[in-house]
């Protein structure tokens, strides 16, 4: 167990893991036009819809959360004390 952790902690290995993840991201988009689709809804037919929609949804969620958090919801920890 310890060896695995030390192995993963090596800077060169970390860099490699990052590149592998980026390669997976690119691969998932590249494979999109070639796979057999069986969509139920029309929006699913858009190219790489899930990738784009997933990214945009998260960006939207983070933006909305941050805005209402900063302006309204987030308070100091002793707010109720």
């Amino acid at each position, binding site marked *: *167990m310890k060896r*695995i*952790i030390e192995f993963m902690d090596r800077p060169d290995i970390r860099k490699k893991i990052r590149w592998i*993840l980026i390669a*997976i*991201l690119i691969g*998932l*988009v590249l*494979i*999109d036009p070639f*796979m*057999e*689709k*069986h969509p*139920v*809804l*029309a*929006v*699913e037919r858009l190219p*790489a*819809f*899930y*990738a*784009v*929609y*997933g*990214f945009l*949804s*998260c*960006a*939207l*969620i*983070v*933006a*909305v*959360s*941050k805005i*209402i*958090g900063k302006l*309204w*919801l*987030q*308070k*100091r*920890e002793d*707010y*109720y004390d």
Partner: protein
Amino acid sequence: MTSFIPPSAVFIAGAFLLPFFKGKLRKFLIILLPVLAFISMHLLPTGNSGLVEFLEYILVFNRVDRLSLVFGNVFIIMAFAGAIYSLHEKDISQVIAAFIYVGSALGAVFAGDYITLYIFWEAMAFSSVYLIAVRKTEKARGASFRYILVHLFGGMLLLAGIILHINATGSIEFNFIGLNGLASYLILLGFAINAAIPPLSAWLTDAYPEATVIGTVFLSAFTTKTAVYTLARAFPGTDILIWAGIIMALYGIVFAILENDMRRILSYSIINQVGFMVVGIGIGTPMALNGAISHAFAHILYKGLLMMSAGAVLYTTGRSKCTELGGLYKSMPITLALCLIGAASISAFPLTSGFVTKSMIADAAAHEGLTTIWMLLTMASAGVFLHAGIKFPYFVFFAKDSGLRPEEPPVNMLIGMGVPAFLCIFIGVFPQSIYQMLPFAVDYVPYTSYHVITQLQLLMFSGLAFFVLLKYLQRTDTITLDTDWFYRRGGQIVVNFVGTPLVYLVNSLSKACYETIPAFLIRFGENPTAAIKIGVDTMGVWADKKMGRTPALKKLVRQKKIYPRSQIKPLSIGAGVAFILFFFIMMFLIILNVI
């Protein structure tokens, strides 16, 4: 007769036996009870049994059908895992409360009538609140008070609805209700409070993170999922639940992203996940209901697992804020690995349980042509990975190194986590194992290349978004306002608003009655004649001022100064007697005259 022992009775009676045993025997009993309950549940005959006459009604303790069995199964499995997880705990009262709580939840699930349901419903509230209060911190005490108050309120709504319903229909059978009239609205509200549908959800995220390590593990599994069961039983296909569920799913994500406490993040994530189930119940088609119910099954396991891993971190470090944690992967790799299995399952990665259950709900929405609902559900799925799949493990186990190097938790905790972790993957690899339990026949194939690739696209790009936006997701030392504000801060404001004028009124009244008026009377009594003279002169001065004459101010001031002595010369007694005699004679004459 033995075949009619309900599993709830095994847990509740067993819980009361626990204090009489010690050491290894007690540990053995703690593990044995869930096993016995499991056996007793599967010995129950299908249909209604355990009938008890009560007043003019017949109570049904065991209503065994496919729907109640799914929940019964997962409840007992989770109780088994939780029991192993809590073996190291020396405070046996926590295990006792947890077992009574599990027994009550099972009782509610197998209840065939409203009266039995209500009794177990309340028993759940009372046994679960102990798991919060027993942590004995100031915060836990406050949270447990608010928790029980909200649940008592919810219980009252449910009871009112049940009484109206029984009055109207004459039957106590607990079955499909649907929305029609006041009784059904009240019952739905009672269920909605336990299902934590916003704005009735703040009790959950307020109380669960304040409970004990073991407490939160048990709490996360039973209350909300019992409510999911009752909703699936009584309100399938109720349109309003679709939107209620969507709001839950998105609301949970937004708050989980803002939150700092790791167990509170996971609590918001419960609301988010129950949201998916509520949407499924709202759609109400066989596929959607199958999705909702199987998702409840999967959810109990992976949320239990995640809460266990958070509990393990709290147990070994004593901390629960993301700002105070980080870098734990170096010394707690096994906990991390188990936690990641839970994180992958909740995010619905292929080969995990979430993948084969959650997708059924979204697909059911698509098949009904509910494009907007489907889009929002998919957005929520992406958001789940963001907050529960990455944020929780990343900030606790990686991110900035906190310098903490805690050891792995006790072995029993790791085994307790291993049970749900194994099942998360088992269900993901063999989806039929769960599909064959569901109430409706399943015609759904989760593993198509299309589904796997699109799901991976969704998740991987959500992950990309997390790391791109990491700057904006940094942890802050804050708490997040929720609807509990209305009874925590709002309550104070109402008290101030109503109380301040009231207190002022009461204070001035008591001051008048006990100070001003008696003081005046005493002062007046010292020399009534002089006091009356001062009063008359004061009025005279006031009148003079009004009329524009020069008032005799100096005289009045002097009079006040020398009071209770006065400048009025007292009459001699002889003069007084003469005056009185004169008065009597005048009276006598007047009376004579009149007569």
